[in-house]
């Protein structure tokens, strides 16, 4: 199960300077864990201590906001694109 993860510029430092990377996993939780194995600390930027998505992070699988599809339990189909974006923006 290979998926593409796209990151905002604000998360570039958490993934070795990359904003696009390949990962594996059948759920969002697995995909985040896979990226975290290669880039330790990544998970903590996306989810809080209780394992839920941080308030200010939105994640889309394809065009779907995962908050309406089970949060970190959302299914990620093979070949899907996972987009992680800031829910709020700086500088108004």
């Amino acid at each position, binding site marked *: 199960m290979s998926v593409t993860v796209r990151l905002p510029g604000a998360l570039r430092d958490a993934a070795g300077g990359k904003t696009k990377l390949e990962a594996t996993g059948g759920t969002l939780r697995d995909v985040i864990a896979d990226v975290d194995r290669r880039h330790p600390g990544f998970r903590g930027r996306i989810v809080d201590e209780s394992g839920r998505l941080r*308030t200010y992070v939105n994640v889309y699988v394809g065009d779907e906001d995962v908050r309406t599809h089970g949060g970190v339990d959302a299914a990620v189909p093979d070949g899907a694109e996972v987009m992680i*974006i*800031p829910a*709020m923006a700086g500088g*108004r």
Partner: protein
Amino acid sequence: MTLSAALVRERVRGTILERIGDTPLVRLRRIDAGLRGELWAKLESANPGGSLKDRAGLWMVMAAEVEGRIGKDSVVLDATSGNTGVALAMVCAVRGHRCALVMPDKVSSERRRIARAFGAEVMLSDPLEGTDGAIREARRLAASDPRYVYVDQYSNRANPLAHEHTTGPEIWSQTAGRVTHVVAGVGTSGTVGGISAALRPKGVRVVAVQPDDPLHGIEGWKHMPTALRPAIWDERVADVHMVQGTEEALAMTRRLAREEGIFSGPSGGGAVAAAVRVAREESGRIVVLIADGGERYLGTTLWE
């Protein structure tokens, strides 16, 4: 013709825009209990467009008018994640100008809808690029079509000027000159720069607060070390620079609602959380800017 508070007042007389400014200043009696300093919140959600940005939006459009930059085919343009867009759209509606805004896609949608309600055209930029992507798109549009009057809140001197001539003097008069500190978040830096120009010469200490991480949830604030640097930003306007984490900002936003009855957005909570740290160490009358109201975040998980 130079822009002045008297000129702006004259131009907006008899319209909703006359209600921009003169916002309430309220003591935070529960949150400042036991602290050395008193905390006072300036409630910018009381502006007709619902945020602090009404002041800069009004002054930037007035400046463009006075400079003769707005003709009958002109379209006032800016990049904004929201509150400035709402302000510009409202001001343009009253002044009879067309307005176009570039906002990052997939950010909280309330402000986008409000701007559209005021008749503005909203164009969406790459969500992965955030506000900086919106700025680059606005620059591209402005360079491609001379009808656009790009007000550029990040570079426009009328932005801090609005706060120098309205917010700062209001704080001074509402505290009868007893204000000792002003605490405000940094986004474009217009607020902190303008208030500094008005109040620092009177001995007031200015505290500027930034988010602690490039990926943060304090809407409207900028993580300067990693963001496109606003041309109007000058670190020297502040006596103290602080950083603020999002989780603590959101927790304080909820406290403001439950303990003080103030329904604020995340940046107000962030500014108050920073001000509490100041008030633990220093006595005096500490004024905090609450930039907008909590209604604009009902579509986020802030209140769940």
